[in-house]
């Protein structure tokens, strides 16, 4: 079974703090993704990575950065957290190629005070 894990289920941070969300997958997938989910707005792609050290902006990259130093790990960084970044953050991974089903982690519910 594919397993995608995220470092925290719940996180509370202060405005202006630097926040790291970690995601690890154990299936040797090339692609990894970060989404956020908000009521009324659905799931939106923040960033994705198709290889180590490679990254592409998604639909809403502003205020975020990412890091992928190893194939199995993809980090989302909030350089200076703001209250409008309070959200549910979901990480996913998939293979490259014709069979590219995405598998999701359990999510991190982040609250910025």
């Amino acid at each position, binding site marked *: 079974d594919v397993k995608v894990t995220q470092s925290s289920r719940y996180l509370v941070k202060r405005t202006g703090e630097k926040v790291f969300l970690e995601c690890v997958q154990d299936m040797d997938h090339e692609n990894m993704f970060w989404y956020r989910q908000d009521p009324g707005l659905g799931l*939106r792609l923040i960033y994705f990575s198709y290889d180590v050290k490679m990254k592409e902006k998604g639909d809403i990259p502003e205020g975020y950065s990412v890091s992928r130093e190893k194939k199995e790990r993809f980090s989302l960084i909030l350089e200076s957290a703001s209250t409008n970044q309070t959200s549910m953050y979901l990480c996913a991974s998939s293979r490259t190629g*014709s069979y*590219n*089903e*995405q598998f999701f982690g359990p999510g991190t519910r982040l609250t910025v005070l």
Partner: protein
Amino acid sequence: GIQVEQSPPDLILQEGANSTLRCNFSDSVNNLQWFHQNPWGQLINLFYIPSGTKQNGRLSATTVATERYSLLYISSSQTTDSGVYFCAVGPASGAGSYQLTFGKGTKLSVIP
């Protein structure tokens, strides 16, 4: 980018009833997935179905790629089927072909 519309937005069923959820999309796709989001927020993979028909127990799905829609069937519904069902698609070509675009979801409530 590709547009995804799900219907109905809300659905209330009596336990044991059957239902059909629909997903329309605006362009050719190389990936279509159905998910169930549980009360803790985790997205559970139901089907990977860019075309054709699949069945898994009481659930089945059909995608007609040429007509740009997919259907999720739930038979003999149970209270544990409650939650939000998402359809998500990946475009067949161009920038973003690895990405998934999600519909807004169908919120299903199954009452005893």
